[in-house]
């Protein structure tokens, strides 16, 4: 139904476009060229937008509120014997039962009140849908009429079209912002629920993390401890190892590619390096578990060092390989953006290429390089799949890379897998962790942006 409606709106807009354009073509051909303000195509576009956009907005808003209105009406129409003294969750139960019955998903014979309500629900929904269609069609017809009336040689359709485009672009940008905002709100809301059950001091400063508490009485589970410090330190340890691997390799390969490699080598090496970013993280995950971890363990045992099978070293190292392209391609861009005159200036003073790179080029490109590093860092902190597969599950407060540690993302995954109850601190703690993760990566991204902006193009 709604699908057809959207299609109708598009067809109407197209029709409006042709109506507007042909109307404008007539006076554009007949009249004095200078007296006609806008080209016919703008008149057409103007008419199409006037017809399409308001109808589209109307339908979207209608769909957003329709169900709520119908639901309220149905609940009000329920006999008082049912709703009297019922809590809001009981009412929700009724509503979902009514919906199921209305949709034909009947598991047992419904009560007569519910069956009647379901009938009302279904008929009102159909009515509302038809009303929407009629209103939308009327609106489009009215808009087409108004647009057609306004089309005249002196009408500034070009500017009107510009303004409409402005609005479309602003709404696209607003959508992204709204979604971000929505994520923050939902995360914060659930995190606040969590902090009602577990004091923030325990979460942020506690050293013991055992969240797997029972959600049914017959389960065998932990006692429940929500000190997230070991989880945070584990994340930092793995991210630090990843950066220790990625920064030198990424930076040096970027320097090599920009300053030393000839065109042919560059044409081969750069795409290969960029393939690293295209490898699915799950592939890195089993590469870490099946290949790297056993190799590291064997090497360790040669020297008599016991290495945990899911050591931070392996997870961090493989993650480091994954984020090399982030650093190398951003450093590459930053180095390439340094003007040739800087290189010439330094070389002409008798500096060697290495001195030129370390003393002039890298400092000049530092904002871009730092931006790349921070981006890689936030990627490393937020990366999930590799650590789920290769890092440990138990929170372990250690700085030893040979032991297993766990990360925020791993914990979020394990907390939300399987049975979850949303009044339980075990489930809710995932949101608190997610919020912290979000804030940290947001800060890193903002810092990266600030650094890049602040020092950008100081050499021009």
């Amino acid at each position, binding site marked *: 139904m709604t699908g057809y409606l959207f299609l109708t709106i598009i067809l109407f807009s197209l029709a409006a476009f042709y109506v507007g354009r042909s109307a404008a073509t007539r006076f554009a051909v007949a009249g004095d060229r200078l007296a006609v303000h806008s080209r016919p195509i703008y008149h057409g576009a103007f008419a199409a937008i006037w017809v399409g956009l308001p109808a589209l907005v109307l339908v979207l808003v209608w769909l957003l509120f329709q169900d709520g209105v119908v639901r309220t009406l149905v609940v009000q129409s329920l006999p008082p014997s049912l709703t009297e003294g019922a809590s809001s969750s009981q009412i929700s139960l009724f509503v979902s039962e009514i919906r199921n019955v209305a949709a034909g998903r009947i598991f047992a014979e419904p009560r007569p009140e519910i069956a009647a309500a379901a009938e009302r629900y279904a008929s009102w929904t159909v009515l509302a849908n038809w009303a929407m269609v009629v209103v939308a069609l009327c609106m489009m017809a009215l808009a087409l009429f108004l647009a057609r009336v306004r089309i005249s040689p002196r009408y500034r359709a070009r500017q009107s079209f510009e303004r409409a485009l402005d609005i479309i672009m602003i709404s696209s940008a607003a959508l992204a912002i709204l979604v971000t905002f929505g994520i923050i709100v939902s995360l914060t809301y659930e995190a606040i629920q969590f902090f009602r059950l577990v004091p923030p001091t325990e979460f942020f400063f506690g050293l013991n993390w055992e969240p797997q508490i029972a959600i049914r009485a017959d389960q065998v589970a932990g006692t429940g401890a929500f000190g997230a410090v070991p989880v945070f330190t584990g994340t930092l340890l793995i991210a630090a190892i990843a950066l220790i691997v990625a920064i030198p390799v990424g930076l040096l390969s970027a320097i090599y590619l920009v300053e030393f490699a000839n065109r042919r080598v560059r044409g081969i090496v750069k795409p290969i390096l960029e393939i690293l970013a295209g490898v699915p993280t799950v592939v890195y995950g089993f590469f870490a578990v099946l290949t790297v971890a056993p190799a590291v363990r064997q090497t360790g045992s040669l020297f008599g060092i016991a290495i945990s099978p899911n050591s931070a070293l392996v997870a961090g190292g493989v993650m480091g390989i994954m984020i090399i392209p982030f650093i190398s391609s951003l450093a590459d861009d930053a180095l390439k953006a340094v003007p040739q005159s800087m290189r*010439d200036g330094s070389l002409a*003073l*008798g500096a060697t290429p290495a*001195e030129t790179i370390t003393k002039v080029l890298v*400092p*000049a490109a530092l904002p871009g390089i730092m931006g790349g590093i921070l981006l890689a860092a936030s990627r490393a902190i937020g990366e999930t799949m590799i650590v789920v597969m290769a890092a440990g599950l138990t929170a372990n407060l250690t700085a030893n890379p040979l032991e297993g540690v766990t990360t925020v993302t791993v914990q979020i995954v394990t907390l939300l897998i399987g049975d979850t109850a949303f009044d339980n601190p075990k489930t809710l703690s995932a949101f608190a962790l997610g919020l912290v993760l979000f804030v940290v990566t947001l800060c890193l991204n903002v810092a990266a942006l600030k650094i890049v902006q602040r020092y950008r193009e*100081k050499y021009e």
Partner: protein
Amino acid sequence: MTQWTLDPETRTTEPASLPKMRGENVNVFYGTKQALFDVNLAVPEHQVTALIGPSGCGKSTFLRCLNRMNDTIDIARVEGEITLDGRSIYDPKIDVVELRAQVGMVFQKPNPFPKSIFENVAYGPTIHGRASAKADLEQIVVDSLRKAGLYEEVKERLHEPGTGLSGGQQQRLCIARAIAVAPEVILMDEPCSALDPIATAKIEELIDELRENFTIVIVTHSMQQAARVSQRTAFFHLGVLVEEGPTSEIFTSPNDKRTQDYVTGRFG
């Protein structure tokens, strides 16, 4: 390391007539395209030699041969002999880094590093280890800025970025940066083309003063500039050195028709 740097003793014993730098049968190719044809030019010591000619005539190419900056262009190939104090600078035994410390260069567009004024000037002396102590380095920086006529204008803000200066000041900073390495020859590639007339006048004045301590080769598009600052002028056309001689002669009584047409403004 080869004993490339001449010690002052041997230098003073050389005949005064020997040119500081000399190019003999210099041919330069960019890929398959030949940019310079059999150029023979001598650059006398403590004089300003101006290279003039229309765009694309090879004057900048020749200039860049003198401190081997053409090495940085992959497809460039230089043939013939170029000497500094009688020694070939394209000799494989020559350390190009040391050569460039002796033959400095100032570019068309001011290109200060995105560092402070002090660091810009201190860059060369630091990498060549010219100053052993911090005080020495400061002395070199101040002296170089003084010689470049910039010190009075920037003495209050030595630690502010060099990129914050005006175009003319930036160019003098680049000259100070080149002087700080204590070169013997300074090459200037149209050093005033990005500057306004007042800044240009200052740089020209400076070039005249620098002649006392350095040998200068300057590429310029402005014939007035060549006439004002140089003692000798070389006219290039289509990759060929058409004529060279004392500036006054080139501008008043050139031998070649092409030179005459160019200096009288008939083409170029």
